[in-house]
């Protein structure tokens, strides 16, 4: 069975060009870049090249830092925990603002800091699924040290007004971190146009390999390392650099930026085609206005069709998608986004996310449209409520 991958917000296929770029660093140029000898020396130009690609990719200034690490979870923990040791612990600034939409690595590190006396505000999305700059402004007090708001949401694809939020933070003298994992490769991310202090990303979300990521730190902003014990990354992150991963991430970033226009036109066209077809089914709700979303994502709620059951049927037909339905999780957290936008409670377990990539084809979308309508028909026949 031909399989179709529509779960690109979870992870992506590695672009073959990225794989080719990293290949030489396994068996040929395998030196440790910190070594003095030729094995180390020959690797370093490629790391400089990767840095160029990454700096260009997010338009970072030469005096800013992009620390190469293992993933966005590491980057996010470095920022949140680093802030505790740097500022929150010893000053009267004991307040962090974040949102209920964040990835668990932000939420849980904030929860952890709460056990150490830090106050955390978790902003709820409004009825459009958004966090507004005004909501952030309203939550800032003279004790606020840090705001952490994601650039784009993983579930709905909604792009948050991070530029306006950055302006509010600047104005109030509060540091701003953004988790840009779902933004890079889908929309333009420019740290000079949007003055964030910290920004985190993971290569595997934009057709790079898993296990490598980056943490952008604006020039002049101090942040202690999470991993101590080495001179790598200027002492900001100890541990031998993942050379193949870093080279691959540089290449993936370059390709991602080259394809931004393609994302906006072709990926968006296919996503819209899929979305239009879904909306033709009765009693279907799509979260968020499409022009406010990343071009690859659609989050759909289909009345009478439980999320996991639909994912099951799609998987039987070789289609990979994902659900926010919490049936199998140990805590009963129905999708917070469906609750936030005021959808009725009956829809809480119906959310399904389809996320495309630049590798998604028209035939795949056509087959998906056909398969979803078939699955919805079957599951609604079974369903008590339809």
């Amino acid at each position, binding site marked *: 069975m031909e399989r179709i991958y529509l779960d690109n917000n979870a992870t992506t296929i590695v672009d073959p060009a990225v794989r080719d770029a990293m290949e030489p660093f396994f068996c040929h140029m395998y030196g440790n870049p910190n070594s003095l000898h030729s094995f180390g020396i020959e690797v370093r130009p490629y790391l400089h090249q990767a840095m160029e690609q990454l700096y260009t990719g997010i338009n970072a200034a030469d005096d800013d830092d992009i620390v190469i690490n293992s993933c966005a979870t590491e980057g996010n923990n470095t920022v949140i925990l680093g802030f505790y040791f740097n500022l929150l612990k010893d000053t009267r600034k004991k307040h962090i603002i974040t949102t209920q939409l964040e990835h668990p690595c932000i939420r849980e590190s904030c929860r952890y800091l709460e056990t150490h006396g830090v106050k955390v505000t978790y902003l709820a999305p409004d009825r459009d699924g958004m966090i507004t700059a005004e909501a952030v402004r309203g939550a800032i007090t003279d004790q606020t040290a840090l705001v952490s708001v994601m650039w784009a949401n993983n579930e709905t694809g909604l792009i948050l007004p991070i530029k306006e939020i950055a302006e509010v933070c600047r104005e109030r003298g509060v540091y701003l971190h953004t988790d840009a994992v779902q933004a890079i490769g889908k929309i333009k991310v420019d740290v000079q146009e949007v003055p964030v202090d910290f920004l985190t990303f993971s290569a595997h979300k934009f057709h790079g390999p898993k296990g490598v990521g980056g943490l952008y730190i604006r020039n002049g902003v101090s942040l202690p390392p999470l991993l101590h014990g080495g001179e790598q990354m200027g002492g900001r992150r100890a541990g031998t650099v993942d050379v193949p991963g870093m080279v691959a991430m540089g290449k993936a970033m370059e390709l991602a930026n080259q394809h931004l226009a393609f994302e906006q036109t072709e990926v968006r066209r296919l996503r819209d085609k899929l979305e239009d077809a879904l909306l033709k089914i009765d009693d279907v709700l799509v979260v968020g206005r499409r022009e406010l979303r990343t071009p690859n994502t659609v989050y759909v709620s289909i009345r*009478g*069709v*439980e999320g*996991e*059951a639909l994912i*099951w049927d799609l*998987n*039987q037909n070789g289609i990979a998608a994902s659900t926010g*339905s*919490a*049936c*199998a*999780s*140990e*805590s*009963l957290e*129905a999708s917070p986004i469906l609750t936030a936008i005021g959808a009725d*409670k*009956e*829809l*809480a*377990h119906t959310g399904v996310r389809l996320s495309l990539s630049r590798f998604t084809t028209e035939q795949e979308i056509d087959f998906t449209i056909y398969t979803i309508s078939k699955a919805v028909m079957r599951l609604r*026949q*079974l*369903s*008590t*409520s339809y």
Partner: protein
Amino acid sequence: MGKSDLIGGELWEQYSNKVADRMNNPRHFGVLTEDDAKQLGGRLVIADEGAESCGDTVRLFWIVDPETDIIKKATFKSFGCGTAIAATDMMAEMCIGKTVDEAAKITNLDVEHALRDEEDQAAVPPQKMHCSVMAYEVIKRATSIYRGVDIATLAEADIVCECARVTLQTVEDAIRINDLKTVEEITDYTKAGAFCKSCIQPGGHEKREHYLVDILARVRAEIERERNPDQVQSDFTKLSVVKQIKAIEAALDEHIRPALARDGGGIELEDITPGEDGTVLVHLAYQGSCKGCAGSLAGTLTFVERTLRQEVSDKIRGVVV
């Protein structure tokens, strides 16, 4: 934790073939009507259970022969995940040919067992066990409708863990008989809490009436009281001073000194004198780092006094020397 727990994420690959097959091709889904009932010469029963906002609902249809109480036909509709659909389908099948009373005895454990491929291999992963509970509850609902009785009259003894159908009595007995001290031990002995984990403590997948942490604390307290009859509260004031000293020293040794020692402190009993209204004044002197610590006057004294009152006698009042 261990080798098999570190990767995680497994869910569907733990379904039995029977579960997958019944999810893909349920045999008994559909609606039964009064016309169907008339044709079969039986009575139509329709029972609903669950709520979509909680993630699954099921509607069970029976046609029952009023002479024999035998269920001639059973179908269902379901909003839920694959496990819920497969379990409901199997449950409907198991009802057919049984009398209503026999059907009412079917539990979610029977349904899960019937869905196994291998006798000793669970049909669904632990976190999916609760998805079959609905299939059990809806039979109870249908039975109560058929009999015209309140569903409460069919309720079993207090069930603590719905997934494994473990009663409150079973949990309490297991704690007492085996002297269990942790929730993990309760789970090992009874299977309660091994599946969706909702019954371990508040905040799980669904709200429960009883939680294992609370039952454990209550039964442990009962056991401790029974074990130390010397410390039966009302008798304390009647004990000789020597026995009072022994009881207090024992409580200090067991419950208080270890806690203080962790912070490098200690405590000594200096004297016991009668107080007002039948109270007993226990004079205590702090040792080590507790001595001169501001916290020891307030926080630690509260802790010591509370512990002594709980363990020895509620007549005790602490006095720092």
